[in-house]
């Protein structure tokens, strides 16, 4: 690849909410964006903002002069699009989760390997500075041996486009666990350096999907049609890994409690608490965006005492840094470690394992 790092042409397949978001960031970074979408309405929306008419079919996009591809279609269609992009010799950033099933995810990983193309997966929270810093603290041993992590990704009201494909088992492959839960597992596993699951206890519920009285305060995507809702909206799980380390996971699209997105990490030397809650509730238009990392230590002295300290790191746009990392990889041809396809496959297998455990 002899692309000019300063101005690349990126093809985006699927320009719904997430695809549009990627397109805007790429435009701000000075790159050219062309798109493909199967939906005429979505194509029209893209065209009105970007003044370029998207292709109807990704194969036309792959034949045009693009340097790399971003895939943000409904999850079930990641595989056919990604596979043909690899075969066209293109590097790919796939939105998370990698696929709607483990076997589909495995085929994507196999196709990337066979064609020797880069496949990065859009778990953008990993690029949040506070997450990166915590990962580094854990890796260098500041917390000692980490033995337990409490991961929570709970939205008070946040079923994504209830009644669209996000809530269809056949298209999305699952509900809250597949959507926000995949982020939580991805971060958890990165903190534990990609552990092997030994035991799982998990439960799932669907309490809000069928309720006509469900009050919408925030959602991704439109909710024009109240169709399709056959997935869970919350999952609680306890995981035990092969070396005895453990994790509690609480996931919800909707719950009658405060919204929270946090990771409490307990080590033998110190603990850490990462809070990246982003409420985005329409009831409070300013929302509350947390981006805090606190460390908890105990020290001996004349008086034994606690030391609680706040890590202050610059706020960043994780979407922008994720895309920059991908584009650097496309230009240099060297695979980024963060958000690689093998990590995404581990997350996919864990999701599958959790779904196997729930009687839902």
């Amino acid at each position, binding site marked *: 690849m002899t692309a000019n790092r300063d101005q690349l042409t990126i093809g985006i397949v699927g320009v719904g909410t997430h695809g549009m978001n990627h397109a805007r960031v790429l435009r701000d970074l000075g790159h050219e964006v062309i798109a493909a979408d199967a939906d*005429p309405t979505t194509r029209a929306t893209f065209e009105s903002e970007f003044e370029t008419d998207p292709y109807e079919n*990704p194969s036309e996009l792959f034949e045009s002069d693009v340097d790399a591809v971003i895939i943000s279609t409904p999850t079930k*269609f990641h595989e*056919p*699009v990604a596979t043909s992009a690899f075969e066209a010799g293109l590097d790919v950033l796939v939105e998370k989760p990698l696929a709607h099933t483990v076997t589909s995810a495995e085929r994507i990983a196999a196709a990337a390997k066979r064609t020797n193309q880069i496949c990065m997966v859009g778990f953008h929270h990993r690029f949040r500075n506070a997450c990166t810093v915590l990962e580094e603290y854990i890796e260098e041993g500041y917390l000692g041996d980490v033995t337990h992590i409490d991961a929570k990704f709970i939205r008070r009201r946040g079923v994504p486009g209830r*009644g669209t*494909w996000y809530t*269809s088992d056949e298209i999305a492959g699952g509900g809250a666990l597949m959507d926000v839960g995949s982020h939580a597992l991805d971060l958890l596993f990165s903190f534990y350096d990609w552990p092997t699951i030994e035991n799982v206890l998990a439960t799932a519920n669907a309490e809000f999907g069928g309720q006509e009285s469900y009050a919408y305060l925030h959602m991704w995507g439109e909710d024009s049609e109240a*169709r399709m*809702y056959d997935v869970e909206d919350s999952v609680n799980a306890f995981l035990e890994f092969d070396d005895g380390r453990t994790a509690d996971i609480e996931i919800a699209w909707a719950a009658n409690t405060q919204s929270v997105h946090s990771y409490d990490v307990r080590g033998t030397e110190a603990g850490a608490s990462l809070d990246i809650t982003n409420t985005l509730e329409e009831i409070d238009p300013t929302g509350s965006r947390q981006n805090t990392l606190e460390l908890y230590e105990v020290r001996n002295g004349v008086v034994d005492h606690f030391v609680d300290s706040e890590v202050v790191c610059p706020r960043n746009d994780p979407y922008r840094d994720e895309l920059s990392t991908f584009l650097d990889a496309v230009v240099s041809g060297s695979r980024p470690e963060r958000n690689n396809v093998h990590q995404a496959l581990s997350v996919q297998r864990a999701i599958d394992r959790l779904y196997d455990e729930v009687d839902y």
Partner: protein
Amino acid sequence: MNERQADTGKTIQSIETMIRLLDVIRRRESVGVTELANEVGRSKSTVHHYLRTLELYDCLEKSDGTYQLGLRFLTYGGQARFRQRIYQLAKSDVDQLAAETGEQVRLVVERGGHGIAIYQAEGEHLDYPRSYVGSVDELHCTAAGKAFLAALSPDRVAELLAETELVGYTENTITDKDVLLEELEQIRSREVAYDDEERTEGIRCVAVAITSRSGELLGAISVSGPTDRLTDERFRSKIPSQLQNIVGVVEINTTYSDWADTV
């Protein structure tokens, strides 16, 4: 099938006679020569020649002096169905819904003001199907038919209703056009159509139309069953939501179907 008047250009009378004969046989399932001759207003000997010819080409089968449709039509029908894109896209979902509900599930398309079932599957509650693939129903008294009417443009609906008599089959059949138009309004707002014993006493049916993202009507999927199984909650809430799940999936798969084939 409806009898159409050839209103433009020249048509071949013998073919029209043949189609009328076949329609009578389809409707009555098994018919003798005399009865057929009376039905189409031709002499027994003429009708006999038709029947002999059709039998020779496997279009008819003869047993005990009566005629039934032959398997050649299955070959034609099989191919006609096979090339319907919606059949390919929705077949497995219809199977899945039949397994989930245990009832009879049908995939219906609209042709010339009637609904034609192009596929059907039966769940565990049925020992044998109540109807067959290819069967034709009127629109005003069936759930799929009303779902079609609700999805078509007002002009097209007016055109269809102008040439249709709203035949009453049960006490519940809607035979008044204004009442039907009001019902279509409700179907549009709730996106579900019901047949509450409107075609056959004791049988209820729920249907949801399948439309493309550009608004084109592609067909409908219906679930039907006896009133003692399709009780109120199941009829008005459970099955409609199961149907909407399946139709939503079919619509998305349809939107992306070109991709899976060509990318």
